[in-house]
């Protein structure tokens, strides 16, 4: 068996607004559109994914929050309806997805060996979080690949952003070892926004784009700084600046996804592909990917 590998790492924000705006048949809510900059960026990245040979998507989500270790989805199928607890008016999505349980078990074992508290989630009534569903729907609307969801252990809350980073790094490295041993080709997804201050009121028509803008200029400047570093392949520097960035912008990076993905990918020093940046209810969202293959890596935006 040849060595497994990570064939792509995606930063894939999950505002449910983006699925809402697409009006897929799975979602009960109806919209008149909105947030095209992000949706068109997602569509382009989804087209790239179609050209890549891979076996599974492994996604780290802030919306399966665990305080007792890191948990992995551990049953082959989940079928239910996901209703967003915060934006139920926008997102009531009927999902039917497959899990690569073998890969999940392998990552679970490797993670436990690294001294991290872990748990397999084997309750068939469990509802898959809307972060997983939104990011996976937008990256792969045909849902023709199995996924593994990894919960986010909330070390930032319990300890500090620094502890979160150390744990997320160890988790990423353990997942990488498991992927290599599995012989599989895997796409990693870090599902989150960048700056993460929301407006606490909503327009009568949520997709009214005349009302959409970043929460404040400070959030915007920080987001641009980070995206610039993505562009320049300065991921080591991004990791270094992460505690301050997360604190200053109350970024959704606090869950650890980006650090996890960067650690698993050996902290890339090559440029990220940028697919778009736009605010959603005040938060800053960037779609980006890191392509380790120099032949397919391109300058997108």
């Amino acid at each position, binding site marked *: 068996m040849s060595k497994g590998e990570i064939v792509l790492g995606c930063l894939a924000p999950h505002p449910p607004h983006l699925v809402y705006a697409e009006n897929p048949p799975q979602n009960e809510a109806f919209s008149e559109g909105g947030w095209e900059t992000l949706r068109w960026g997602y569509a382009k990245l989804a087209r790239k994914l179609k050209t890549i040979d891979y076996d599974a998507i492994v996604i780290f989500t802030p919306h*399966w929050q665990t305080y007792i270790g890191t948990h992995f989805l551990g049953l082959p199928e989940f079928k239910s309806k996901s209703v967003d*607890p915060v934006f139920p008016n926008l997102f009531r999505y009927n999902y039917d997805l497959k899990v690569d349980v073998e890969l999940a078990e392998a990552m679970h074992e490797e993670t436990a060996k690294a001294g991290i508290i872990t748990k397999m*989630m084997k309750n068939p009534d469990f509802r898959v979080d809307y972060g997983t569903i939104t990011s996976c729907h937008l990256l792969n609307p045909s849902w023709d690949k199995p996924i593994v969801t990894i919960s986010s252990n909330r070390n930032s809350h319990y300890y500090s952003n620094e502890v979160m980073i150390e744990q997320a790094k160890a988790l990423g490295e353990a997942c990488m070892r498991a992927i290599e041993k599995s012989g599989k080709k895997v796409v990693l997804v870090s599902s989150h926004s960048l700056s993460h201050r929301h407006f606490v009121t909503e327009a009568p028509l949520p997709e009214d784009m005349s009302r959409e803008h970043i929460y404040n200029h400070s959030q915007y400047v920080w987001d641009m700084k980070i995206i610039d570093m993505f562009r320049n392949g300065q991921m080591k520097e991004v990791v270094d600046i992460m505690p301050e960035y997360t604190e200053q912008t109350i970024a959704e990076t606090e869950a650890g996804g980006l650090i996890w993905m960067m650690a698993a990918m050996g902290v890339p020093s090559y440029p990220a592909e940028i697919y778009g940046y736009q605010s959603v209810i005040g938060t800053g969202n960037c779609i980006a990917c890191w392509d380790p293959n120099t032949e397919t890596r391109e300058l997108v935006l």
Partner: protein
Amino acid sequence: MSEDSQILFGLYVPPHPQPLLSPDANAGYANLRAAFETCRKRIEASDADLIIVYSTTWPSVVGHQIQALKESIWTHVDDDFHYLGSMPYNFQIDSDFSHEYCSAAEKRGLHARTVEYEGFPIDTGSVVALSLLNPDNRIPACIVSSNMYANRSETIVLGKAANDALVTQGKKAVVVVVSSLSNRMFTEHIDPSEDRIHSSKDNEWNEKILEFFADGRLEDLSQLSREIHGQIRVQKVVAYKPAWWLAASMGQHNNYEGEVLAYEALHGSGGAVIQLTPSSGSFGDKEFDEDDVEYYQGDRNVLNKGSH
């Protein structure tokens, strides 16, 4: 000031699923379960028309959300404690009251909305509380979220709006706040028989809070909320809010009969079942630092003020 409180008594209960799903795993969980049972019977013996739940495990972002779906049916599974089992529920919601509560909140300057969607994920704390306190839907319920950005003034006003809605509809209620005391859990899986409060500091603070509750000093606890947040709350949200909401809904004073029915560890956090019943005698005569607020004016914008 709002009119007299329509609230017969208030309960403070923990959000963790152990008392519902694994009460026999530990004598403490069984003790909490028994305390829930006692409260269930007291609700049954009261002439409450409904139960209002303020849950700290239901965070909202867009204002304050109020559950209004008449028949809320689903099977809930906890993010951390999924291995303890599923929690099927079927809750009857007083939809008319929920709509009234929403408009009462709006009248006090809050952004609020009802949610009425099949499959809406009712949170672990609300599911545990309603399953144990009102298992047969003898009376309907209403559940209100805890906005993750809201601080004191919003929460006080939200509590007062609950009573406004009761007055408008001429209903009497039991209010239930779902929250831990200290909320730091162990970050590893433990043998339930070895459960204990995470640290002696957390335990000492919990004991002090319970003394206040036992003395009926709810407004004092409301005033102490910021200190409690700093001392024994993991900083997941901006503030410790349950005492604010409870005190505001029940009348902002210290005239209660307090009873701590149980206090036990729940995976390291402090879980207590407490009852507060309005009474006549007040504990002490205090002056309070924190201002009262009737109407939410929004955040004060200080960035563009000054001597430029």
